[in-house]
């Protein structure tokens, strides 16, 4: 129904304009007729309205010719000549209808066109009919406009100019189509989004610098591979730092079948690390486009495989059974999946350590270190004893505390450490997450102590923040249960305006003193009992949500582990060119916020205003 109404309205409007405006309306009537044909065939195609719309459209086009002839008969001289020219243009434009008819199914069926020949036929004529419609329609409309502007006698020059302008405009617009078609068909593209191959990180350089046996790196790539060109400088830098222990070779896989078979390399696009009979292999596609992502984190991949090759696998035990944070925790602020992955990349086996595994008896002898991640309930006295015995014999503990969780009083007292009861807060330097007062507990700090665990962080002290989402203070108690004397080193501190938020309102009350709090402490036993422990006041600082966003927190976690197991010589950043989430503190936000929104626009407005005023004043003085 709505289709019929639309057809009727369009036809009525077109013919009405044609009759009411004999000079300027004929062209509009013609356009209305074409529009109706289009509606019938394309919009209503296959429906009840298709035939009526098409027939009415063709009729309106035909009537527009009649209106043109009638208008021509009513005038003389140059105006008649103008109408005649418009009639020719109208006929050329209407030719588009005939050409379009050649692309319809009845015609192509009658010609027996199928497949590729049908496609070519349709594409060719489809390109012609818009050009004909434009070449006839635009000059005709401009002639109508000129006729309306000169109702008595139209100058010949106006007719000539109208046709010339119309044809130029029509072909100008028509030119747009083939140009764009050619550009799309022969499109060339360049992806210039961020890409860089990693440089060797300090820890990887340290690793190759301490190699005890030769290691070969074999790159399997064809001679013209762009990926190979990108990787070779990285490996050459490693080789240079290894003092001759690391050798780099490049092979084209098909040319060295015996070697490829020995190393089970079935194709190009592989990197093999070999030390004696042991090998490690990973893939970096020979096509640079596909390899971009792998190349951005090449250093991490190489280090992971080098560690597997040159270091024995070690075991990290994670205490369980008291509601500790862990890799499968549902709360993202307590989920430690990324920490586990970082340990695996450092060649650790990460094992649970609960009552079933003997946590109430003794820490296994193969433990490289034990993680105690913010238990909700107290450890059993037997478990504390087992951990104390482990410490006594030179073991290593990585202990995370958290507000609202068990304060592990006995275990920490044995290490000469205690943790606070209430979360710390800072009103100026915090990470906005919910944009409410609660964010003040999300501490961000660049205050690092002088210690192996923070050597890398200190190097980038102005770049990376350590983020703690609700932390408690860590303090030294003055005496240890463990054999002493122990050395306590604060490794992470808060800013001086941080307070312990005893009333939990995230507002600094009169009794809540602002001061520097220790957020993480390293404890080291004497030479005869070389135990090591790192106590961190917030388990969320090692959670997935923080480690994936805060590079500083990730460095702290990995370098703490390296120090605990005596690998501090490997401390350092793993180089990565992967895109990072931009995390910033509230303090930084405010500076950028006001500078960006108000600073620059006000400056532009002020300079512009000054320029205009001075200019006008100078003009006025000249006038005097």
């Amino acid at each position, binding site marked *: 129904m709505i289709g019929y109404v639309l057809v009727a309205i369009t036809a009525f409007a077109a013919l009405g304009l044609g009759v009411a405006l004999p000079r300027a309306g004929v062209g509009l009537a013609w356009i209305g007729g074409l529009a109706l044909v289009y509606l019938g065939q394309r*919009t209503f195609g296959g429906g009840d309205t298709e035939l009526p719309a098409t027939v009415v459209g063709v009729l309106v086009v035909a009537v527009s010719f009649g209106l043109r002839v009638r208008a021509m008969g009513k005038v003389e001289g140059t105006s008649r000549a103008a109408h005649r020219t418009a009639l020719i243009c109208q006929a050329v434009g209407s030719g588009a209808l005939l050409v379009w008819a050649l692309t319809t199914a009845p015609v192509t069926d009658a010609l027996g066109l199928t497949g590729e020949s049908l496609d070519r036929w349709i594409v060719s004529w489809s390109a012609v009919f818009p050009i004909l419609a434009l070449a006839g329609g635009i000059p005709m409309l401009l002639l109508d406009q000129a006729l309306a502007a000169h109702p008595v006698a139209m100058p010949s020059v*106006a007719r000539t100019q109208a046709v010339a302008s119309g044809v130029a405009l029509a072909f100008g*617009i028509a030119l747009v189509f083939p140009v764009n078609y050619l550009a799309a068909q022969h499109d060339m593209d360049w992806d210039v989004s961020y890409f860089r191959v990693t440089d060797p990180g300090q820890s990887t350089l340290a690793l190759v610098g301490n190699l005890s046996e030769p290691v070969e790196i074999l790159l399997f790539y064809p001679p013209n591979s762009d990926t190979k060109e990108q990787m070779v400088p990285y490996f050459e830098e490693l080789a240079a730092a290894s003092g001759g222990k690391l050798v780099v070779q490049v092979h084209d896989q098909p040319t060295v079948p015996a070697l490829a078979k020995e190393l089970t390399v079935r194709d190009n696009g592989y990197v093999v690390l070999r030390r004696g009979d042991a090998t490690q292999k990973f893939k970096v596609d020979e096509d640079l486009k596909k390899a971009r992502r792998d190349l951005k984190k090449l250093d991490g991949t190489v280090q992971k495989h080098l560690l597997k090759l040159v270091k024995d696998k070690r075991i990290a035990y994670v205490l369980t059974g008291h509601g500790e944070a862990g890799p499968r925790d549902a709360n993202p602020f307590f989920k430690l999946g990324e920490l586990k992955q970082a340990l695996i990349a450092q060649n650790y086996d990460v094992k649970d350590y609960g009552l079933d595994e003997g946590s109430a008896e003794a820490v296994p002898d193969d433990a490289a270190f034990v993680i105690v991640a913010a238990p909700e309930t107290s450890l059993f006295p037997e478990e504390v004893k087992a951990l104390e015995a482990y410490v006594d014999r030179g073991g290593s503990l990585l202990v995370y505390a958290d507000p609202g969780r068990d304060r592990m009083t006995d275990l920490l007292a044995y290490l000469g450490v205690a943790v606070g009861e209430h979360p710390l807060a800072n009103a100026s330097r915090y990470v906005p997450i919910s944009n409410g007062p609660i964010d003040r507990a999300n501490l961000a700090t660049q205050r690092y102590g002088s210690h192996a665990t923070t050597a890398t962080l200190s190097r980038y002290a102005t770049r990376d923040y350590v983020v703690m989402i609700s932390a408690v203070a860590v303090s030294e108690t003055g005496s240890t249960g463990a054999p002493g004397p122990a050395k306590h080193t604060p490794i992470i501190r808060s800013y001086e305006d941080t307070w312990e938020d005893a009333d939990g309102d995230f507002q600094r009350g009169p009794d809540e003193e602002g001061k520097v709090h220790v957020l993480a402490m390293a404890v080291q036993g004497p030479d005869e009992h070389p135990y090591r422990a790192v106590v961190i006041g917030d388990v969320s600082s090692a959670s997935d949500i923080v480690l994936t966003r805060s590079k500083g927190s990730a460095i702290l976690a990995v370098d703490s582990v390296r120090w605990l197991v005596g690998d501090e010589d490997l401390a350092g950043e793993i180089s990565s060119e992967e*895109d990072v989430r931009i995390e910033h503190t509230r303090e930084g936000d405010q500076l950028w*916020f006001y500078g*960006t929104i108000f600073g620059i626009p006000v400056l532009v407005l002020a300079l512009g205003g000054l320029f205009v005023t001075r200019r006008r004043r100078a003009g006025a003085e000249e006038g005097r």
Partner: protein
Amino acid sequence: MHTLLVARRDLAAYLHGYAGWVIVAAVLFVTGLLFQTRGLGAGPQLSHEVLETFFENCGGLVMIAGILFTMRSLAEERQLGTDVLLQTSPATDAQVVVGKWLAAMGMMALTLALTLYMPALIFVNGKVSLAHIAVGYTGLLSLAAATTAIGIAASSLFRTQLPAGILGAVVLVTLLLGWLLSDVTDAPFKDVLAYAAFWDKHFTTFMEGRLHVRDLAYYASVTFAFLLAATKVLEGRRWQ
């Protein structure tokens, strides 16, 4: 030569009046606001996401600014009667149109240059390439070229700024949303409408740091078509 004279005259008119500076400052203010609320201030985002959001915001504002800068260019000449001076000057209609377009582009380039500090802020903590920024700005300039051409064509049809601005905006919105029609039309118009998508089809690639010849050709051809139309309107006015 005449083209540059017209361009210089119009550029001076922009810079010697308060309106041009107000438009530039307003665009910078809104760009900064969007950059903070949708980009840097919208929580932790990857560097390239922040940059893409910046170009997205800037693109929208470039289109608005393009119409604002150009809606007065030819319409005001007619309103003040100074079009007679142009018609009787040695400059051809094409030179007048191109000169006015160059002046508007000068203002757009100045505005965009003043936004450069925003992507530079991403370097403080993030990782983006200079080439990505360059490609994004190439896209913004292409978008500005096409938008100002549309604005000038609209301005050539009217005697006052307001209807010129409205028509320019309508044409722009039609080009922006025309691709939606491609869902309800058949070939060849379907393909044409889908290809002509002013933003979705051609600008998003620049935002992502991908430079396509087809997108440059598209914006160049839109610019050419509308400047040609504006020229023909001026020519038509001579013989009318």
